[in-house]
């Protein structure tokens, strides 16, 4: 068992290259790589013959920290993995530990969690689609979507005090109850979203001829490849596979809401292209808005329960293990929590992050495309390096 420190075993050497090929490094610092990702491109002029992604530039030892802090102390660290959609991460972990401990939260708290999760989905997709447009050169939709994302972050700040990393979903409850007037403010936001933001997004970016031409035939992923490489979320729904954990294994009361699964349709090119994945993200924002309307209606009919009522003083789950998946905005986020029943710290927490598996398919999809299409492909997989590297 030797450590692979000798690069002659895997690195491309000059003898491996054809006469015209060169190795181009898209280094960890790059305006379009959505974080610290290094891509080693083997190009024949402008056409890419092979890609080696190198990750690990943001490896922050999340799993080691989990073993050394107690169950509630893990939650701030989970926020920092997928930092664009932090509410979803802590929700997945809290639900996993609640399943391990056998805690059932009240229906009111379930509705609160759904509202927060769907608002976070809208905010996360705003960043995803906005930065994707910016990668392709469309700077204006980025500014518009970030402006609208600020309104969602205002709601979060009103609720729990933080804009980006909230420590909100606790084991057995949430940290702060929704304030008075939250429902009205959210309805105002949704009214504006449905009337202005979403049509603007569809007209300015998704229906834009340049956007379509740049993305509709690029990065086509067949359903078999997607399943084998474990693409999840909008990535696999863009390839036409109608799987959504909110429908298949519902959690937090999602079975009570009526919403559709958005699928890519391949109307401008082959099914499973970058365009389809982005179209799924944009349509999912509208579906989230639909769920939010229903959740707010349900909220108005319920009476509040105290949010800290079932939060354990110091969580100590019984010996066992659980694997819990939730539908994060980027895909299926899975937490494998192992408890030894004896200490207050988890024994092992393994996170299956959707972006990690999305990155693993990159070298397959990237063969034969041009360097500019590589940029289009990275953005369409919607990767966040904090989640890949943990």
């Amino acid at each position: 068992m030797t450590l692979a420190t000798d690069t002659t075993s895997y690195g491309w050497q000059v003898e491996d290259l054809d006469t015209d090929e060169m190795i181009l490094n898209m280094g960890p610092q790059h305006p379009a790589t959505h974080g610290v990702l290094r891509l080693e491109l083997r190009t024949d002029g402008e056409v890419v013959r092979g890609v080696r992604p190198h990750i690990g530039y943001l490896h922050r030892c999340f799993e080691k920290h989990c073993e050394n802090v107690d169950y509630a102390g893990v939650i701030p660290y989970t926020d920092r993995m997928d930092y664009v959609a932090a509410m979803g991460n802590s929700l997945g972990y809290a639900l996993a530990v609640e399943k391990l401990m056998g805690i059932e939260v009240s229906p009111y708290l379930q509705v609160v969690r759904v509202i927060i999760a769907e608002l976070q989905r809208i905010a996360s997709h705003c960043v995803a689609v906005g930065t994707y447009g910016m990668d392709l050169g469309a700077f204006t939709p980025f500014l518009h979507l970030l402006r609208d994302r600020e309104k969602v972050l205002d709601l979060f700040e009103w609720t729990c005090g933080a804009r980006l990393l909230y420590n909100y979903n606790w084991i057995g409850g949430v940290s702060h109850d929704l304030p008075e007037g939250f429902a009205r403010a959210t309805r105002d936001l949704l009214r504006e979203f449905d009337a202005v933001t979403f049509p603007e997004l569809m007209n300015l970016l998704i229906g834009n001829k340049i956007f379509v031409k740049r993305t509709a035939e690029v990065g086509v992923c067949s359903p078999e490849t997607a399943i084998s490489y474990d693409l999840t979320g909008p990535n696999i729904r863009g390839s036409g596979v109608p799987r959504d954990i909110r429908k298949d294994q519902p959690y937090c009361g999602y079975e009570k809401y009526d919403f559709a699964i958005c699928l890519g349709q391949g109307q401008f090119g082959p099914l499973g292209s970058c365009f389809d994945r982005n179209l799924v993200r944009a349509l999912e924002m509208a579906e989230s808005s639909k769920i939010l309307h229903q959740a707010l209606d349900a909220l108005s009919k319920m009476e509040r329960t105290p949010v800290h009522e079932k939060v354990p003083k110091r969580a100590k789950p019984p010996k066992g293990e659980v694997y819990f998946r939730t539908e994060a905005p980027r895909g299926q986020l899975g937490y494998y929590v192992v408890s030894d029943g004896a200490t207050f710290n988890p024994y092992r927490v393994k996170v299956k992050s959707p972006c990690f598996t999305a990155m693993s398919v990159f070298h397959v999809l990237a063969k034969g495309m041009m360097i500019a299409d590589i940029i289009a492909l990275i953005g369409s997989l919607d990767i966040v390096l904090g989640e890949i590297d943990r």
Partner: protein
Amino acid sequence: MAPITGIIQNKFPDAVVFTTVDQVVNWARKSSMWPMTFGLACCAIEMMAAGGTRYDWDRFGLIPRGTPRQSDLMIVAGTVTLKMATRVKRLFEQMAEPKYVISMGSCANNGGPYWKYGYHVLKGVDEVIPVDVYVPGCPPRPEALLYGIMKLQERIQEDRVLRRHPESVGSLTGATLENR
């Protein structure tokens, strides 16, 4: 901001002409600091929000440039890992003088929440590059980052470009007879 030895830099005494030229040069430098977008982690999202429409940093003259060779400010936003630290150093060396560094967020200041068990986390970016302004927070609000930029602008305004730096009293921290 070490004294740079150029043909006319740091040579002249404090006279009216040189002080005024210094003021003009410093005003030009502070009003058009072009940052290199070096967003590593969560603080990068707040940096993007600081560049967005609500907390616009363009009104301070900051236009983000992708390459270190054309930028004068490096905002290290996010956790610097050991694997990334060599690249941070290389990027800092690729920037042309005068260059400034803002360490944004607690991870870049001193390792942040990962200081205790992070075996792969560099405990503060000032282990590899010199930092001018530290902005605390996890993540700092965009207004905090703008405040850090304003503080850096104040420091730049007091800088000596043409005028000689006062004599050092020989201490390691660079205390001088004037600004001790």
